[in-house]
């Protein structure tokens, strides 16, 4: 990192102001990592083949117009980057070496076989660029028996473990992949942390290094209770509909509301405070039935009658819409969440009050809301994303700057 950390007077720097990243990535794990860095101020120079990154061919597309510059998948993972397409006057390797002269980080997603095919050698790169951090984000890591295996979000989540915990109570239905590329996103989160640890080490020693991030391992350590249940009591957890996979079945936690929307609410019977709050709430709506009996003061009695309690809770939620249930439940101290659709969160008064969404101009006649970075630091300015680059948009600019530097 250069001295640009201090930023200009009156304008607090961004966390990665002054950091230059060369990105050679073609999947949402690598591109998502680059996005996190670009969003926080890094100059991310994305090298793309002439036909563009593979993610440029993945929909949905803006206004359903299919082109290299209209993929919403590409847009989502490439906010704020610069795009360079080699002009053919030199080999990709030669261009890479030139760009790496001024770079802090090479973010790259090639598997071992592909590294060899590209004629790259990470050890040699680190020898010629001793301050360079090579941030490798791959399916399984750079060595081991599965290192050249392929992955995708579904396969990553399957092999890494989280998928086994997700699905429905009915086990004739297979495990169901949670949406939104979360396997890739988990790898990107660890890549971000891994890079930061390497940057901190370089602050002390001046030395770069290879950071080898495995999506498979990232998911294998992100199953929450599944591994500890195996490490300690040696039991497996079993998937349940929209609630924690557990060794033994637990009561449903999704409740349908009057407006046909769902809320999530898991009653912890052993805790007295939420029990009292729940019964008071039910009483106010006339559906407490016998739950006010003193017999329910006894935990064992509540446990024996859990099914009956659940049925009354179903009534409670059927009497009100999901938004009302959310705010009234929370007002009463109960951890209830409405099952919001993505379009619902745009209207959320809390997120609006925190200025979480901002408008990004994608084109002269197209702008849309996007989330800002979820990091809020008192020492840095709030981060507003800028759109993803058009294919090769910055080729001339970047190559000209490199020429000037030589």
């Amino acid at each position, binding site marked *: 990192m250069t001295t640009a*950390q201090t930023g200009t007077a009156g304008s607090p720097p961004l*966390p990665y102001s002054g950091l230059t990243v060369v990105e050679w990535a073609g999947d949402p794990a690598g591109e998502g990592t680059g996005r996190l860095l670009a969003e926080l101020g890094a100059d991310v120079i994305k090298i793309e083949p002439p036909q563009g990154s593979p993610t440029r061919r*993945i929909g949905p597309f803006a206004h*359903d117009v299919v082109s290299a510059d209209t993929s919403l998948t590409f847009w989502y993972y490439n906010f704020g980057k610069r795009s360079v397409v080699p002009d053919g006057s030199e080999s990709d390797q030669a261009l890479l070496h030139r760009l790496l002269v001024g770079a802090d980080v090479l973010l790259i997603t090639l598997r071992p076989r592909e590294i060899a095919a590209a004629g790259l050698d990470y050890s040699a790169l680190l020898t010629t660029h001793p301050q360079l951090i090579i941030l490798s984000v791959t399916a*399984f890591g750079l060595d*081991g028996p*599965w290192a050249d295996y*392929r992955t995708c979000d*579904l*396969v990553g989540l399957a*092999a*890494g473990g989280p*998928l*086994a915990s997700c699905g429905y109570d009915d086990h004739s*239905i*297979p*495990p*169901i*992949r*949670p949406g*939104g590329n*979360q396997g890739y996103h*988990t790898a990107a989160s660890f890549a971000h*942390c891994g890079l930061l640890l*390497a*940057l*901190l*080490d370089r602050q*002390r020693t001046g030395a770069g290094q290879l*950071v*080898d991030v495995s999506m*498979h*391992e990232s998911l294998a*350590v*992100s199953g*929450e209770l599944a*591994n*500890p249940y*195996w*490490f*300690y009591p040696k039991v*497996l*957890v079993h998937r349940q509909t*929209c609630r*924690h996979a557990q060794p*033994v079945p*637990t009561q449903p936690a*999704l409740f349908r509301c009057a407006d046909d929307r769902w809320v999530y609410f898991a009653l912890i019977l052993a805790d007295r405070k939420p029990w009292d709050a729940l019964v008071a709430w039910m009483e106010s709506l006339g559906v407490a039935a016998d739950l006010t009996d003193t017999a329910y003061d006894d935990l064992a009695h509540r446990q024996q009658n859990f099914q009956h309690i659940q049925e009354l809770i179903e009534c409670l939620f059927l009497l009100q819409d999901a938004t009302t249930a959310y705010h009234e439940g929370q007002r009463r101290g109960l*951890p209830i969440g409405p*099952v*919001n659709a*993505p379009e619902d969160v745009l209207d959320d*008064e*809390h997120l609006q009050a925190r200025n979480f969404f901002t408008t990004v101009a994608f084109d002269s006649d197209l702008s*849309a*809301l*996007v989330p800002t970075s*979820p990091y*809020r630091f008192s*020492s840095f300015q709030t981060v507003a994303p800028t759109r993803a680059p058009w294919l090769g948009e910055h080729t001339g600019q970047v190559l000209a700057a490199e020429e000037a530097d030589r």
Partner: protein
Amino acid sequence: MDARHPSLVQRQPRARRGPLSGIRVADFCWMGVGSVATRMLADFGAEVIKIESRTRLDLPRRLPLYKNDSRSFGAEDPDPDPDKGGLFNNYSRNKLGVTINMRSVEGRELAERLIAQSSVVTENFAPGVMAGWNLTYERLRALCPEVIYAHMSGFGQSGPHHTYRSYGPVVQAVSGLSFISGLPDREPSGWGLSYMDNQAAYYNSAALLMAIMHRNATGKGTEIDTSAVEVGVSLLGPDLLDVTVNARPTRRPGFPPGNRLEHPQAAPHGVYPCAGEDRWVAVAVFDDTDWHRLIEAIGNPAWTTDPRFASGSSRFAHADALDAHLAEWTRHRSPHEVMTLLQDNGVCAGAVQDARDLNEVDPQLAHRGTFFELDHPVIGPARFEGTPVTFSRIEQDNWRSAPLLGEDNAYVFSDILGLSTNEVADLAAAGVI
């Protein structure tokens, strides 16, 4: 001291290795998000001092994940041994542990002395708890100039819902992540884990590391406010842009698509039954090259010549029929047999692995050393989830399993804060520590 069990002597704090060595963290975090967030700091050399209450035990100390003792959450021990909890061990390895009664004036004074000797303070209580102890950013800066003060909460420190209660599944519901997960036209399957406890924790680890890097460079501290719900919304993926750019709501027939993949159209793309009870394998075929590799690998059965399966768009249109054929082939084989056969033929496939598979079957995790072992005085030897990143210059510094309740009181209060042995004994007798 010498008379103690050798395993206890080895538990004495020592100088730490790693890019965070020399950084002391006064860690008020508890539950999942906070504990996982500061775990990465402890793993890589920071002296993370976990501050706990003896009267309000951290939930992972209480949850009944006990070695060789299987019981459900509902069968919690009413008077649990706080040092037996496996989840706590997993979350708090490499940290120090002290007990402070924050309800007492003396306890709060002690906490302030510890903060003054630290340079990072972390917490994930409900907003207002720390302020109730007068531990505001302003107060912390008075105690420790250029402190880094990280708040990790469900909804953030401001806004009309900042006091709302949440944990992983609530965050997943509110942020939209549950809704986009499931089969179409029925209730969502959502998540069978607190995905957002993990992701919020990883984002909070990164926030702390960014703040430390920034302070190393500029000398300036910072206050951090991270909201798990906002992290969750930022993780929704391209579906969110389809909503905002194309004004296409996700409350529509056919959404979410379950294991089908619409972007790009892929078929077969799903989770298929295997031999054994509740065993499955994931297979993903993206183009004609993949398709030809697949049918070659499974021996070119007659059904693969069905003209309905001749092109990618036609395979996608007839995915039900295709899935039924493929399931007939997978259901006689083990998940790992299918995975290996297909991957060796260049087809993207993965066994749906459970925790036993990850720990006892998976050759890749074994090769990479993803899990590691540490001894614990009460629990005994136990496995831990390591860092899924291999570095060429640095490594995770595993020096000890999780602290016993108050295990490091003497070290922290005497060696770091300079109290005499008698003073520490008096604080213990008075219920302050």
